[in-house]
């Protein structure tokens, strides 16, 4: 599914096809970059939700499931198989009996149970709690009402029974590094944060805070013949221009590209072939607060969608490094509906809708934004004159990114512009608009619609995956019609990859998150 989408949408890794057919070479060093800031937050991956940290964690740790980019879905990793019973609410996992932590100890069911209990420790607010919360009794641990998750039961050393609170596919919840399995005996010790131990293909060697993390091959990794490389270095490089020089100078193997560099690399015949791009499962939008009177009217929200020339902004300002949003679910979602068309740019219709809603002269609202170049102040600045033409005045309120996330969760806004994860599970993405979902969770527009609730509930109960997809598409269409947001774009993640690095996966959940055991470097790499 994903592979097909990649081709259709003109995505695809533009790397030399013959190289992929070569036999992977053993040895060498992979030099990745962490582009989202000037440090890693922590070496305890349970404590940090930043995409930056998961880059190294993919080498160091493993979870029950793993994301398979080719299939576009999570597949069992530490679980060998899962038997579903109890009307879809009970999963019995057979765990790997050949997974060894980097201290040489074999992983057992106790480690999984200990790790999930740790993540639900309500005194620590571990970000992975949002995923583990699907297990019965996990919320009670989080609230301090129980010491252990009642829905987790050890059958034997390599078998665990998991009872869920609702009928969801746990694979979509338990594949990220936030739910990594830690060694129960070691992780409780103080020194663990300084020298983490995991189940991943590479073991920890060194962390130079603010500069790099170095990992080296774990010879007892459970996938035969893997990993290929001897060493992985993840360098922190928050400055795009510095990454560009380092990439051209062959000092790094991967570099995330921003809009300006995307254009420059496409225009350079020497660099064009290094570009890998994928539609990530993030939707950028302007959320409208229904408590603010004009936005309570659907016609006003639709008028905003008609009034903005979204294609112009994507092509001129975002430099084509995004896909036009045609609804809430992104291009790479399994429930994406290709028949959906975006709101056309039609200021006349916008004016008409505003007049019908009782705002013939428009109105004024406050728009809260961060400085983000792809979905922040530059975009807001471009939209303001477009809205002005239909009579809508905008007052800009600029805040830091960290503050913006508080603002949207508290509802303390009239409108905001944001980038929200809308996958990989379409059901979870749409459930954010279910009236039972609190604003502080992900229902940031405090959306309430009985018809949508009904469709989502039906989809949640359905055992027929085709029917479920159909229902989710229906929900997505309803949302599009209700327009609680200005549907802006889906992120196009772009990464430059050196020609000697092979096995790069087009990961739609986050392109920088690579299953490093599948990467290898050929003999032309300067870091032999």
């Amino acid at each position: 599914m994903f592979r097909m989408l990649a081709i259709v949408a003109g995505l695809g890794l533009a790397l030399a096809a013959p190289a992929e057919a070569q036999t992977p070479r053993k040895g060498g060093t992979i030099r990745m970059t962490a582009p989202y800031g000037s440090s890693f937050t922590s070496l305890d991956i349970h404590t940090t939700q930043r995409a930056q940290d998961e880059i190294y964690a993919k080498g160091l740790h493993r979870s029950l499931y793993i994301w398979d980019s080719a299939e576009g879905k999570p597949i069992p990793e530490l679980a060998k198989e899962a038997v579903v019973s109890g009307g879809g609410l009970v999963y019995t996992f057979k765990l790997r009996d050949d997974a060894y932590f980097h201290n040489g100890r074999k992983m057992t069911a106790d480690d999984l149970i200990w790790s999930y209990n740790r993540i639900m420790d309500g005194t620590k607010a571990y970000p992975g709690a949002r995923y583990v919360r699907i297990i019965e009794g996990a919320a009670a641990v989080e609230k301090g009402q129980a010491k252990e998750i009642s829905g987790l039961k050890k059958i034997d050393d390599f078998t665990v029974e998991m009872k869920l609170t609702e009928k969801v596919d746990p694979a979509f919840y338990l594949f990220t590094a936030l739910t990594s399995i830690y060694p129960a005996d070691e992780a409780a010790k103080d020194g663990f944060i300084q020298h983490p131990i995991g189940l991943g293909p590479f073991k920890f060697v060194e962390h130079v805070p603010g500069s790099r993390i170095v990992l080296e091959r774990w010879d007892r990794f459970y996938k035969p013949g893997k990993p290929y490389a001897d060493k992985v270095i993840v360098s922190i490089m928050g400055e795009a221009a510095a990454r560009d020089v380092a990439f051209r100078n062959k000092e790094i193997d991967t570099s995330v590209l921003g809009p300006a560099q995307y254009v420059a690399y496409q225009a350079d015949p020497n660099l064009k072939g290094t570009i890998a791009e994928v539609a990530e499962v993030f939707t950028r939008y302007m959320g409208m607060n229904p408590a603010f009177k004009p936005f309570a009217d659907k016609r006003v929200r639709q008028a905003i969608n008609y009034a903005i020339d979204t294609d112009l902004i994507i092509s001129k300002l975002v430099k084509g490094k995004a896909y036009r949003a045609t609804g809430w679910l992104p291009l790479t979602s399994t429930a994406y509906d290709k028949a959906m068309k975006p709101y056309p740019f039609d200021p006349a219709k916008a004016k008409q809708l505003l007049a019908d809603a009782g705002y013939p002269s428009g109105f004024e609202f406050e728009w809260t934004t961060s400085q983000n170049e792809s979905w922040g102040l530059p975009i807001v600045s471009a939209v303001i004159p477009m809205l002005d033409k239909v009579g809508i005045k905008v007052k800009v309120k600029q805040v830091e990114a960290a503050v913006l996330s508080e603002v949207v969760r508290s509802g303390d806004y009239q409108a905001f512009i944001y980038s929200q994860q809308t996958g990989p599970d379409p059901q979870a993405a749409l459930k954010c608009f279910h009236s039972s979902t609190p604003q502080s969770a992900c229902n940031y527009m405090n959306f309430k619609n009985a018809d949508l609730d009904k469709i989502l509930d039906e989809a949640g109960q359905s055992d027929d995956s085709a029917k479920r997809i159909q229902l989710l598409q229906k929900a997505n269409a309803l949302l599009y019609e209700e327009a609680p947001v200005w549907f802006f774009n889906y992120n196009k993640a772009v990464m430059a990859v050196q020609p000697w690095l092979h096995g790069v996966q087009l990961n739609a959940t986050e392109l920088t998150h690579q299953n490093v055991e599948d990467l290898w470097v050929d003999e032309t790499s300067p870091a032999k």
Partner: protein
Amino acid sequence: MPMLSFLIRRLLQTIPTVLAVVALVFVLFSVVPGSIVSSMSDDADPQVELRLKKQLGLDDPVYVRFGAYIAKLATGDFGTSFRTREPVTTMIAKRAWPTLQLIFTAMAFSVLLGVPLGFIAALRPGGLVDTLAMVVAVSGLSIAKFWLGLVMMYVFALKLGWLPSFGYGDGGLKYLILPAVTLGVSPMALFARTTRAAVLEIMTADFVRTARSKGMSETRVVKWHVMRNALVIILTTVGLQFGGLMGQAVVVEKLFSWPGIGSLLVDSVLQRDLPAVQGSILVVVLAFLAINLLIDMLYGVIDPRIRYA
């Protein structure tokens, strides 16, 4: 004895400075929006958030938190990072050496190049060397560090291939040169200008004219009268520049992926990690005070007329 009492007096003066800095950061963090709790998880249960705030002491009034922090600080405890859950002293210790390496190398580069440049320029005012030196000085002061760093990377790493463009490597000189020179260009320019101005002023001073009229050779005049007197002014500038370099290092560290205190400070501020911010700022302030104290002591060595009464 006068030196000892001077030292004790200056050390005691650091206490109100430190208290003022800590208080300022506390007040600033209590009024700016955003909290560490929301940056830790954007989907935490509200009850969990409240419990976490309580656990971190964030639900206490500012003055209570301030008092508790000062009490800890008095025992040498900088607290524990909200973000990494490591002791702040450990975090700073990991970053201190790279920052010191960077700042002292940048300072050495700027003094060794800037002072002689200013001196030579002043000896022939209006001449070719003077004009060239001042062009270099004005350019050095005007160039943005970020841009200069990128140009240095482009020329010395990408085009010439002499040096790595980023990173700390093994902490060796080849990784240090580009960030240190980037950081050092602006103070180098300032030292050149300051030295030139100081030397020009001293050259026309009465005691220099007297020395010349007594038949002292020009070399001796410059060496014994001009240089020594100019050094006092240069030293003052060096002391002040250390503080400036610590601030400017933030940009350079980020650009070159240099693992110093600057990048720790930036990330800590963005994530509202108050203990780490406090610790980083305190270290910078203490280092600034220590260097200036050292320079005050050096005044007496250079100019024996200066007394520590």
